[in-house]
């Protein structure tokens, strides 16, 4: 079996395990390349029709192209789309320039997610994080439990042997399931190419710049690049010396911001 098929089969196995354990599950879709790939894998796992809701956490600061992409493909793929927003914080003017970026991510992403989970009673979430994105994510389990405060207990994670994932317990508020944890950035692009997965045009170079990772407008900077097609992105990644999240301002505030954010329940 070739590399991409091996990765795909591993992901589909995990997605199906998660759906068996938690009929009350949802997919977290940021509209970025990773969660769109995950969404594609879910369509394959369930023969075209995803049998659970897809959540988009809307900070109101996303790129206009992302909102358009979301609405288009929610229709094309017949998604049961839930838009989660922390109305209270948005209303009071929370933003990355008011206070720290950590506070902003925590309010507009993590707390919006908390509210959405609480209101719908989801017991599990599928997330498109990957181990090679960040050293903290490299420590994740495939099934990663969170308590009622969304705390990630990274100092005492459950054992995870072979393909046996932890059953749920009463202390678990919900379980984060990570079906593409084992894929790298270049795997994702090779898979997008093979499967012809639609992807936001923000990733393609315009005027000598492109986004390697997308999120909120104020905290995303493009990288210098002339890669205007998926093939060119793959070529670029083979030799690049910059890291994928170099343009993501929230990781850079402090060496351990990602750890702090994630321990509070960030993705």
């Amino acid at each position, binding site marked *: 079996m070739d590399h991409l098929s091996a990765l795909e089969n591993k992901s589909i196995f995990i997605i199906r395990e998660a759906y068996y354990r938690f009929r009350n599950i949802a997919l977290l879709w940021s509209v970025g390349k990773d969660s769109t790939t995950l969404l594609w894998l879910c369509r394959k796992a369930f023969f075209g029709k995803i049998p659970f809701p897809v959540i988009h956490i809307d900070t109101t600061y996303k790129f206009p192209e992302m909102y358009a992409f979301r609405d288009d493909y929610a229709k094309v793929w017949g998604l049961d789309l839930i838009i989660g927003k922390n109305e209270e914080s948005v209303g009071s003017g929370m933003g990355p320039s008011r206070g720290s970026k950590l506070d902003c991510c925590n309010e507009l992403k993590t707390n919006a997610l908390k509210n959405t989970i609480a209101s719908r009673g989801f017991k599990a979430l599928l997330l498109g994080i990957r181990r090679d994105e960040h*050293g903290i994510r490299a420590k994740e389990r495939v099934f990663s439990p969170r308590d009622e405060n969304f705390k990630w207990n990274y100092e005492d994670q459950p054992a995870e042997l072979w393909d046996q994932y932890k059953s749920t317990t009463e202390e678990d508020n919900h379980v984060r399931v990570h079906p593409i944890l084992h894929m790298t950035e270049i795997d994702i692009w090779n898979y997008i190419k093979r499967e012809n997965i639609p992807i936001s045009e923000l990733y393609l170079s315009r005027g000598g710049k492109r986004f390697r990772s997308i999120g909120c407008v104020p905290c995303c900077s493009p990288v210098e690049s002339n890669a205007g097609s998926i093939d060119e992105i793959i070529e670029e990644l083979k030799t690049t010396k910059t890291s994928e999240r170099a343009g993501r301002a929230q990781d850079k505030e402090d060496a351990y911001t990602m750890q702090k954010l994630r321990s509070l329940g960030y993705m």
Partner: protein
Amino acid sequence: MEEQALHIVIVGHVDHGKSTLVGRLFYDTGALSPERFEEIKRASEAQGKPFEFAYIMDNLLEERQRGITIDVAHTFFSTQKRKYVIIDAPGHKEFIKNMITGTSQAEAAMLIVDASRGIEDQTLRHCYILGMLGIRQVAVIVNKMDLVGYAEDAFKTVKGRIEGVLEGLKITPAYIIPVAANSGQNVASKSENLSWHKGPTVLEALDSFSPLKIEEAVLRLPVQDIYMINSDGIAVGRVESGTVKKGQQIYILPGMGMTSVREIKKFGEENVMSASAGECVGISIGRGWLKRGDVLVDRPNAIVTKNVHANIFWMNDRGFKMGDQLTFKCATQETSAAIDRIIKRFDPASIEVIEKDAREIKAAEVAEVDITLFSSVSIDMYAEIPELGRFVLESDGVPVAGGIIV
């Protein structure tokens, strides 16, 4: 370049230099971006240290403050030959469950031993776990050769001892390599100081390993779930061994029903005729019903039983006391279980039997046990079909032990 990535776990006693070796390997092969290098330099300075290669793997603040690895980290790099996933495991006894978690995903291992300190408790414990999990491709890395003046004699002493330990576990190390990881000697390039070593560097040793070959074997397809698609019940699952073919007669274990494969489904593919080990498929059958936990086989040669004889390793702190309620999970099968007999328990750090006919198993101990299950399961010997020959025991939803059917 080879297609699939090779998964390698790095094991050994605390402070013998596992994370440093991986960090150095990463750095010397050019896999570390300048930006990440700067980040680690700053973090090292903040902890009052010179450039700390281990920080490439140890990213938690607590890990850097305490100078230890708490949990496994997976990292990715490539050589001319292939892609690698390097799994850095923690070396403390208290994090043994994390070490086992990492090792369960590996096809090969590098065992690190500090030349100045020799074999210690976790060296022995980790060796034992490698043997038990059937990891036969092992390279031993004798690290910190700088602390013993690069002396060949010191190396030979450690080499002899570790060979003795591994021999008892039926592991023949492919290489035993003297290195000084923090200065990169014999990691990616040969060391002048260690010119008496005629074998490969760590990087060359890695490239000489091979992926686990999946032998042509009998069919095992455990059912994961049933989906209703166009009012047709489709059983989904992953082929764990062998090949499933359209039209084939199959048995449904553990019940011993017989049926045929009417159709194999994969989204976006028409008329799938067969699927082999590793493939996730949907199956519709001619007659009868399937449910999660059923195992589809082509010949009724699997073991259908309520009694399992196994070697288990205990992972949680509480340990086990006779009478504790457990859940047995093997592939997609799950049933209540009780350990009725602890034939013997021992501490792999000493490899001496602690007690026969025991009433308890303590944290990080290994035991030979008889387990009685509430419902029948379909299993195989670990040595024959590992996917159906290994299991996890849970207590109140928490995985507490792993086991190998012998």
